[in-house]
């Protein structure tokens, strides 16, 4: 058995390396979220306003990228481009692979959010002489944003946890940093518990913050749960 003081000392000494891994984890999370929000929004618009082929494509894309396991996507993105002569770093492969998946989920979330704003709101905006653009910006968006927060918080937590899969490509994110330390100092449990604690703070802490934001922005009558 390892003394508690020895454990604490080990965690203290390992902290810089673990925080280094945490930074990579956060970088991955933020880039994947940005990727997912950007393309997800684009796809959602395509779904709502696009013609038939576009809608068909978005539907197919969502189905495919929601069905293939995250790990498989990562490996495909990692091993695919080299056969084209393109080099892709493990980090970029992780962003691209999980980003493609995030796009599919984000697109659905955005679509659900837009739909949550009733057509009477749009009719009312048109009746005031607003165009499509102004209606979207001043009527739909402010209402949709509030509905968007809960599923977004959920998706954030999923992406953050999924970045641990970049381990399989050799990205030095939090989990792999932990494995490096364990290889040298043989006390895996302390290190893993420290890692779990960091993940927990990042998921639970941020989803709590988003919950507070949600409550702050709450308008009586808006905030219906969407599937």
């Amino acid at each position, binding site marked *: 058995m390892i003394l508690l003081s020895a454990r604490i000392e080990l965690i203290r000494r390992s902290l810089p390396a673990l925080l280094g891994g945490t930074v990579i984890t956060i970088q991955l999370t933020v880039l994947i979220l940005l990727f997912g929000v950007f393309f997800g929004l684009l796809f959602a618009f395509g779904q709502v306003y696009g013609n038939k082929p576009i809608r068909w494509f978005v539907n197919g894309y969502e189905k495919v990228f929601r069905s293939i396991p995250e*790990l498989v996507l990562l490996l*495909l993105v990692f091993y695919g481009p080299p056969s084209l002569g393109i080099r892709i770093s493990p980090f970029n492969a992780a962003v691209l692979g999980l980003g493609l998946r995030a796009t599919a989920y984000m697109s659905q979330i955005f679509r659900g959010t837009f739909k949550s704003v009733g057509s009477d709101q749009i009719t009312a905006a048109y009746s005031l002489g607003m165009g499509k653009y102004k209606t979207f910006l001043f009527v739909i968006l402010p209402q949709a944003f509030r509905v968007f927060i809960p599923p977004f918080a959920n998706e954030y*937590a999923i992406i953050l946890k999924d970045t*641990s899969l970049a381990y399989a490509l050799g990205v030095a994110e939090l989990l792999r940093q932990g494995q490096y330390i364990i290889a040298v100092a043989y006390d895996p449990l302390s290190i*893993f*518990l420290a890692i779990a604690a960091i993940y*927990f703070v990042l998921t*639970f802490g941020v989803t709590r913050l988003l919950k507070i934001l949600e409550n702050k922005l709450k308008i009586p009558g808006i905030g219906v749960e969407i599937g």
Partner: protein
Amino acid sequence: MLEFLTEFMIIDIFVSNFGRLMSGLRFTLTLTFVVMFFGTIFGVLLALGRSYGIKPISWVCTAYIELIRGTPMLAQLFILYFALPAYGIRFSAVTVAYLGFTINCAAYQAEYTRGSLESVGADQYKSAYSLGMKRWQTILFVVLPQAIRWSIPAWTNEFIYILKYTSLAYIIGAPDLMTQGKFIASRNYQFFRVYFIAAIIYLVIVLISTWIIDKIEAKFKIPGFG
């Protein structure tokens, strides 16, 4: 470009490794079903413990649910696979897969079930009490059956989720579809092609599963529920 397109020519590999791929798929599916079965049972018990248990029980259930949901599944598998042996507790990769996924699944199922339990209205309790039902009878015969019906869509989503995540068995080396894929690729060096085959198999299985689940849900639908 043409060279890349040839990467998608996979039929040879699929045919010559059919047995191994199917054995991997069989493991993946068995793992998924067993994990779902026990994960759902434990999940319901955790949800009941959290919502109706005395303070210490409720607190333990809450902590379990939040800690598991707040950390990556891979980290949980690593704790079972790499950390416990330091304390003399040694599990095979297969055991870790069954155990780890069940532990994870239970927490998510518990959270969905809790949401449904809490959505059952006060009028249902009031009616049950007015008939002379005790608290446990009310929970067991009135609240839980309704909560389960509200939970079914989330539970079946979890099935798809677990089906996909069993691919993490690849990282610890339990013989699922991806591990078999890795084995094949390590011999023929056709990593992309092999994983592409795996992706298609997952896609087909997930699409078939969702189709079957929709059929079953439609068949057992009760008017007034979703």
